[in-house]
């Protein structure tokens, strides 16, 4: 590519590269928490994941000059435990953390940044509905409608699913295909928590949690940690050949009518996804047809069809045919959430999706490896905060 071509993509295009990924033993820790044990706190999980990522990158603690911690761990104590006194820092969710890290690297605020996340939500009995619903202080919609019994993100997605079906989206049996496909992929992933098969019939036989959604539409709730090491593309070249570059990244937030939920129910975040997609694809210089694997933030199954339509993989209103004819499983031409995602691998709030994206491009996914995987697209639309990342090969 010419220098002009590269510049027109913006300064974040291939500015940063992921050179290390790490995570805790989700399966082992889930077994221990099920027995009533408390293996670690969120900070502990994050620290163990950091060591794993550092080893993967072949670096030491002293090489890190930037730190971003996830929203579930306190920044200062985390940095103290990791022994990092950085020149730049932040606190963000997974997609936001990658975006901030790219910006810090491109502007020279830091060269090598550790992104760490840890969560003891299972053993700490974190609740996502009811009087003490998590995140209610940050998202008014999660608490405001409680006087009418409205609570839990699952119920919000149930409202969306019902309207989505009425507007020509997916029936319950159509939506079932998402959980079924992700479970089949998870069966080939030794790190996945749910590795028993699931059929559409078994899905339909499950009781509703909040009708029309059933348990398999909801994400897991488990303890664990994830860490990523991101550095400048230039430094990645010196370090070795495992680097995966951030080719494109974009963000678009929809805040209007968020608290009443009207925004979700009338637009389903399509507009935010369209803008984030355009920004990230333009920056990457690739489009949906170049993407080999899609990683979609799937706290609920409904995220998957909405993202496939919102990011232009499937025409709006065509999702039922897309799921039946093309599919999203490992044998499809463009598999989604190859690790099993939040529904079947681990609920690490988007962080585990980054690990899977990197490993697919590295060709390190074993039985679930997608042959010849070059570009992976990550998408999140949590509460209308749409983040889109295009990962691709290094040099």
């Amino acid at each position: 590519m010419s220098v002009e071509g590269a510049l027109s993509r913006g300064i974040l295009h291939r500015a940063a590269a992921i050179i290390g990924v790490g995570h805790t033993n989700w399966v082992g820790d889930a077994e221990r928490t099920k027995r009533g044990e408390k293996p670690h706190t969120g900070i502990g999980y994050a620290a163990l994941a950091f060591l794993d990522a550092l080893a993967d990158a072949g670096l030491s603690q002293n090489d890190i000059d930037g730190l971003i911690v996830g929203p579930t761990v306190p920044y200062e104590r985390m940095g103290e435990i990791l022994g990092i006194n950085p020149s730049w820092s932040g606190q963000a969710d997974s997609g936001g953390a990658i975006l901030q890290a790219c910006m810090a690297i491109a502007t020279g605020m830091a060269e090598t940044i550790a992104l760490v996340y840890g969560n003891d939500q299972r053993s700490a009995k974190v609740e996502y509905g009811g009087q003490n619903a998590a995140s209610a202080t940050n998202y008014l919609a999660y608490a405001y409608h409680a006087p009418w019994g409205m609570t839990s993100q699952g119920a919000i997605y149930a409202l969306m699913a019902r309207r989505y079906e009425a507007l020509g989206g997916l029936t319950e049996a159509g939506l079932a295909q998402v959980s079924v496909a992700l479970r089949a992929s998870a069966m080939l992933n030794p790190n996945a928590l749910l590795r028993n098969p699931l059929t559409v019939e078994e899905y339909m036989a499950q009781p509703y949690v909040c009708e029309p959604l059933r348990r398999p539409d909801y994400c897991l709730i488990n303890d664990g940690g994830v860490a990523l090491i991101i550095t400048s593309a230039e430094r990645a070249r010196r370090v070795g050949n495992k680097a995966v570059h951030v080719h494109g990244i974009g963000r678009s937030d929809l805040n209007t009518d968020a608290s009443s939920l009207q925004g979700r129910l009338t637009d389903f975040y399509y507009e935010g996804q369209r803008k984030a997609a355009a920004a990230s694809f333009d920056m990457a210089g690739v489009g949906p047809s170049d993407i080999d694997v899609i990683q979609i933030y799937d706290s609920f199954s409904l995220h998957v069809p909405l993202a496939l339509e919102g990011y232009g993989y499937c025409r709006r209103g065509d999702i039922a045919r897309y799921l039946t004819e093309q599919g999203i499983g490992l044998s499809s031409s463009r598999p989604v959430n190859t690790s099993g995602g939040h529904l079947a691998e681990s609920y690490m709030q988007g962080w585990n999706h980054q690990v899977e994206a990197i490993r697919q491009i590295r060709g390190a996914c074993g039985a679930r490896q997608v042959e010849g995987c070059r570009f992976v697209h990550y998408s999140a639309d949590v509460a209308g905060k749409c983040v889109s990342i295009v990962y691709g090969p290094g040099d």
Partner: protein
Amino acid sequence: MGQSRAIRTIYDDPMWETLASGVLRLQQCCNCRSFRYPPGPTCHRCASPEHKWKPVSGRGQILSWVVFHRTYFDDYPAPYNVVAVKLEEGPMIVTNLTGKKPMGSWIGRSVELCFERHSNHGLVPRVKLAGDDHRNVED
């Protein structure tokens, strides 16, 4: 478990005060005339802080509905429904459908406001199908 709790900031208080007498009032912007919900200090469309509290017509349409099969609050034992209703004035409220239930899809059904007494929150606005002669519950 526990009881459901209302979020009542200083912006919400005027709404709750008239709910107690069976009237749903929302803020209407004096500049661009748009209604807003939940209540807030300024207009999200034109940024004007000037507003008046106006009673709504009570007419609306169901945008979506769900049925809870899991209990999250002691005062809302499952099963119960939650509906999203687009009011004639523009805002959408989240509430419950009381009285008769439609056959088939609830989406697009015309509804009207009614008020029912809740153990903690006093009179709360709910909706019933337009034309349903279901009596407001005053237990």
